[in-house]
């Protein structure tokens, strides 16, 4: 990790202690988020186990190609974010800015793909609470789509927060308020959050689109 250190706040003795606290604090937050999404994955695992036929029928309704393209876009954003953190640690302002903008664009592209999917699925009657009649006879298929919209919606909200955070870094960078490499820890913290949101999708994609196909 980079040795570039920010100004030390009064509760710390040295900058390395502050940096270690920043990193540990963010990892503890991510651990709590992992437990939140873990409960969603646990629900999906139980439904896959007790209703395999209905889950298979429900999964077949999803657009696999759009899911795969969206996943590729998000995996690419992981790399641009990692490159932004790397460049920030080395004080390369322009490279950091380009990588951050690339991350925002890829994040927005994923959200656009997901919104397109949701409209498509709503049109097919796959949104259980409203819209056209649900097309599948199995009641458990409704359970799958309830969880599908909850899990993808929760992920999309987290990604939207990530996009806002990265866009904030872009604005700070352009306005000169993000001095690098001194404040690279700010980029690193946002990067850790972004990577976590990508990891959630790395598990959501096979759980929703592949396992029961």
């Amino acid at each position, binding site marked *: 990790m980079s040795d570039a250190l920010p100004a030390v706040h009064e509760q710390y003795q040295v900058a390395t202690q502050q940096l270690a606290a920043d990193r*540990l604090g963010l990892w503890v937050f991510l*651990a709590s988020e992992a437990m939140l999404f873990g409960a969603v994955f*646990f629900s999906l695992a139980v439904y896959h186990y007790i209703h395999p036929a209905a889950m298979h029928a429900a999964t077949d309704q999803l657009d696999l190609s759009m899911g795969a393209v969206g996943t590729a876009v998000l995996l690419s954003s992981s790399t641009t974010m*990692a490159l932004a953190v790397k460049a920030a640690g080395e004080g390369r302002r322009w490279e950091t800015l380009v990588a951050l903008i690339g991350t925002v664009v890829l994040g927005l592209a994923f959200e656009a793909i997901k919104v397109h999917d949701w409209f498509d699925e709503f049109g097919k009657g796959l949104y259980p609470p409203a819209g056209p009649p649900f097309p599948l006879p199995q009641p458990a298929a409704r359970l799958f789509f309830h969880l599908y919209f909850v899990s993808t919606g929760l992920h999309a909200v987290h990604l939207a927060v990530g996009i806002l955070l990265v866009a904030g870094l872009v604005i700070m960078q352009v306005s000169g308020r993000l001095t690098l490499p001194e404040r690279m820890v700010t980029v690193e913290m946002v990067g850790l959050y972004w*990577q976590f949101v990508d990891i959630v999708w790395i598990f959501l994609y096979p759980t929703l689109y592949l396992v029961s196909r």
Partner: protein
Amino acid sequence: MPNRMTLVAVWLVLLALLGISTWVALLRLGSWHAALNLIFAVASAGAVVWFDMHLRKGSGTLKLFAGGTVIFLFIMFGFGLADWLTR
């Protein structure tokens, strides 16, 4: 912190794992789907955590917290699924 070539290599590996897992899902392998897709997902997530989140160069405390998260998820899934799997 990994160099740029390592990060690009990790990206290519992630895309390859995505392609393989999607292709495997179309092979109609029955219950093998779940096991193989879980393995590919764990491998992809591991690569992101280890390289893109820099845990490879992280302190022992960070590794302890990251490992602890996985252990607590195992406890939740293990104890929770034990109920359904033993009925």
